[in-house]
């Protein structure tokens, strides 16, 4: 095992000082693993590091997930069938910047950016329950009671190294099922934060500097040594308690935290994203990607429209439209779109017929996911759903042309991130697991 004595790098991937100029990526990765006390990942990390050196081509760095918690209706967003039996009377399809692609009139600004956005209109899954389906979409696997799979952001953080002082995996306005590290470890869980207009949770000491310093001093010089007496010599490696306190303190004093604050952004920019928590979250996501964060999830909730679908979805879209479109524009303006993949998805779509309450119910048998940037061929559409789709039919898949599975989306995203998704990791109990069981959706790749 390559073990480096570098004190500068901790297992959480946070560098204490900037030594990267002196070190190759490979030794950094090895050092990170060597200090983590998780030997089962060593060879893998080394292999990865080698592969990394052998392949210098530019690859996408970051991922932004616009998570539509509740399951957004495909019919009033990206897959309208105006005039069909299941459509609302008010639904219109509008032309977009991508020739031959039409989307619903609820998203006029997004329509202007469609040249950068690709759609998969034929995503299918077997999960129709919110929690299970959210797990499925976020991890690329169906829930397995014997194992918790890591979400996309966790895989990226585990596979790629960074040197930022703030968490590399962040969830803004998380739903009840925030992205998790799963078998990779709790350190890959997303850091959860809320409306950027509010203070960032848990990073300000509740007392003045003098008292805060005294508290820590008492902890590290009096209480911790008392506990360590007559215990295992490797106590601190076992618990990582003081290590994580150090990292937490670095984060608390980091300038990079300002990326989560949007109040310093120009008023016109803030207005473009929309004066909403989700709009601010999207602007913060751009700023976070800019300082080097690997994966940001921004959640827009309220899509579970079992009743009154027409009005509710229109309201959601008024929040979504300016934020999503501005996100694409701003990433482009900052020259980040090529290196940032944007995924728009919820846990499933909605039934193709309207129920007696004017709502639509859960529908995993053909729904839409949108992708942009980061090597995605904008303006393309994969798959198609039939305007005649009937929720009562026994074979629901017959209304979907070219169905794609959730795991195929994951394979595609990991592939674009430069991650070998077919590699097998060993879970802590030694079970071999591939990162994704899907196949890359070739049509989505920009040459």
């Amino acid at each position, binding site marked *: 095992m390559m073990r480096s004595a570098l004190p500068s790098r901790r297992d959480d991937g946070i560098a204490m000082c900037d030594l990267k100029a002196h070190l190759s990526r490979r030794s950094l990765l090895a050092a990170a693993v060597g200090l983590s006390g998780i030997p089962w990942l060593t060879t893998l990390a080394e292999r990865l590091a080698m592969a990394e050196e052998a392949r210098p081509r530019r690859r996408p760095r970051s991922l932004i997930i616009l998570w539509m918690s509740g399951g957004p209706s495909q019919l009033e967003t990206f897959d309208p069938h105006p005039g069909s039996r299941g459509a609302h009377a008010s639904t219109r399809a509008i032309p977009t910047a991508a020739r031959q692609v039409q989307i619903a009139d609820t998203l006029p600004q997004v329509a202007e950016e469609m040249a950068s956005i690709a759609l998969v209109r034929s995503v299918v899954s*077997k999960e129709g329950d919110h929690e299970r389906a959210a797990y499925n979409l976020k991890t690329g696997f169906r829930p397995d*009671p*014997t194992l918790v799979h890591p979400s996309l952001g966790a895989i990226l953080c585990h596979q790629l190294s960074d040197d930022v002082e703030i968490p590399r995996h962040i969830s803004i306005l998380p739903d009840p099922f925030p992205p998790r590290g799963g078998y990779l470890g*709790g*350190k890959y869980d997303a850091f959860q934060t809320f409306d950027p207009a509010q203070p960032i*949770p848990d990073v300000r000491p509740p007392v003045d500097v003098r008292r805060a310093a005294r508290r820590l001093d008492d902890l590290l010089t009096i209480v911790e040594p008392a506990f360590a007496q007559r*215990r295992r010599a490797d106590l601190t490696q076992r618990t*990582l308690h003081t290590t*994580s306190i150090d990292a937490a303190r670095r*984060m608390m004093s980091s300038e990079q935290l300002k990326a989560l604050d949007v109040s310093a952004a120009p008023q016109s920019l803030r207005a473009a994203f929309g004066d909403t928590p989700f709009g601010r979250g999207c602007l913060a996501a751009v700023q976070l990607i800019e300082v080097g964060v690997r994966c940001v999830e921004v959640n827009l909730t309220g899509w579970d429209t079992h009743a009154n679908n027409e009005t509710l979805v229109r309201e959601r879209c008024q929040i979504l439209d300016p934020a999503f479109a501005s996100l694409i524009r701003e990433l482009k303006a900052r020259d980040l779109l090529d290196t940032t993949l944007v995924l728009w998805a919820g846990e499933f779509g909605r039934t193709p017929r309207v129920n007696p309450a004017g709502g639509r119910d859960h529908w995993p048998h053909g729904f839409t996911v949108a992708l942009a940037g980061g090597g995605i061929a904008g303006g393309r559409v994969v798959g198609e759903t039939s305007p005649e789709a009937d929720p009562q039919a026994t074979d629901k898949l017959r209304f979907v042309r070219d169905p794609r599975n959730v795991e195929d989306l994951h394979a595609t995203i990991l592939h674009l991130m430069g991650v070998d998704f077919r590699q097998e990791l060993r879970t802590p109990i030694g079970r071999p697991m591939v990162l994704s069981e899907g196949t890359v959706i070739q049509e989505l790749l920009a040459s």
Partner: protein
Amino acid sequence: MWARNLLFLAVCGIGILWTVGTLSQPASRFVYFSGASPSGKPARSEGLPGTRRHRDQSWQHALAQLDAQFREAWAAAGLTPAPRADDLTIARRLSLALVGTIPSLEEIRALEAWPEDERLPRWVDHLLADRRYAEYWSERLARAYVGSEQGNIVLFRRRRFRLWLADALAKNMPYDELVRHLLADEGVWTGQPAVNFITATINPAGGNEPDPVRLAGRTARAFLGMRIDCLQCHDDKLGTIELGTADDPQGGTQAHFHELAAFFASAQISLVGVRDGQRPYLVKYQGDAQERKVAPRVPFGKEFFEGHGTRRAQLARWVTHPQNRAFARATVNRVWALLFGRPLVEPVDDIPLHGPWPVGLEFLADEFVRSGYDLARLIRLIAASAPMLRDSRADFPITQEHEAAWAVFPLSRLRPEQMAAALVQASWLKTIDGQAHVLQRLAMAGQIDQFVCRYGDLGDDESSDQASTIPQRLLLMNGELVKERTRPQPLVTATSRLAMLSRDPPRQVETAYLAVLTRRPTPTEKAHFVTRLFDVSPRQRGQALEDLYWTLVNSTEFSWNH
């Protein structure tokens, strides 16, 4: 928002009443303990029914044999066991394990007033009789039975299910009976809560019927200690699944899995809830071109299978049959894991059918069957065993081997719920149990949920053993709950109560240590923090106490079981 304000006012109100009461009799009130003598005098053993009754001669005999097995194993491996831990350390472990939180100051005072030789047995009796035990364990077991998902709200009532479990635990229903209810009950999920075990697997995208595949996987893991889920799609390729008999072991096949699942195929949703109908079970095996009808058959132990009653009733009787050792082992391993924070066989639900098994497992499984599946008796046995009494410290170098063989008590990180409950308890001094005011318990439940969400719920992954993370440290260092629970809020938190009740810094420091870490400070610690308190004017002492509380809850010692 309004509800929160009202709640706050109510909590303040309770605080005032309670403090007035406390001030009128300052010293004795600390010793007051529900169930013991309210006068504060040490209660004699006959004051607490049960201790003798629950620990008859056969129990004593079993304990001696169990301990002898461990001592022999340690000697054979050349491992020196750690010395016995002190009573308070053991009391903390047992409290965390059985009621999911640390002992209150009030409980500590009561415990110390008991005669030394009766302390731990009485402590275990006290915890098992506490409703918090039923509540905490019902959630742990529910996660094994139905997962942590909220599921389909129409057909699955998780809360009802958990309350039913809690009631069953509170009256110590024989465990085989409890499991038979889960596997075989018929009826509506609200009136017959055990059937939620079945309805939890209903997938709205899969025809709104219970899913035999998920039920088979859960049954195997939760009740047989076997992970055979991968057999759903293919025969065992890794050679890790052994079925058949000890003399004639067989590798796991797809048929083993689906024949087990076929027992559940008859469970259907009807107007009168879950009923057993005639639904055939169809599977397409790997390599087959067509589906075939699969008949139910148990994956091993055919000799004690009795074929009468509904299919699920047949399965339930087989699973809980005294000859079905896998059932007893699975239960013992899970109970052990809940008590120690680590199972005897890891992972908790993957125990080899034909061995080898670690020391203690076979013996405890025998005892469990012989006692008629008496869960409380099993808990009392493990709680009094030599491994539970070992210190986590020693004067010799402690290695991984010592922890693996239970020669020292292994360190394990507190579960998020334990962390949250311990934080709240540490700041109250008095026990927050079933007798605490409903608003106080409500406030606590809300705070705990919020904390657990940010600290990171483990979900179904109950025995996950992970090191601490940065967001967790941030939450403890700067988070709302810690801030609120350590701040000297007039009449509400321990810091202000300590500042008011005792003007004596040595006593304040000692009390803070007991309330947070369930121990007294070392001389160095005491000297240091007493100076801190003397260094400030009596007015600022509240602040200094708040700092002390912060320091203690941020220690490794607080967030780990030791």
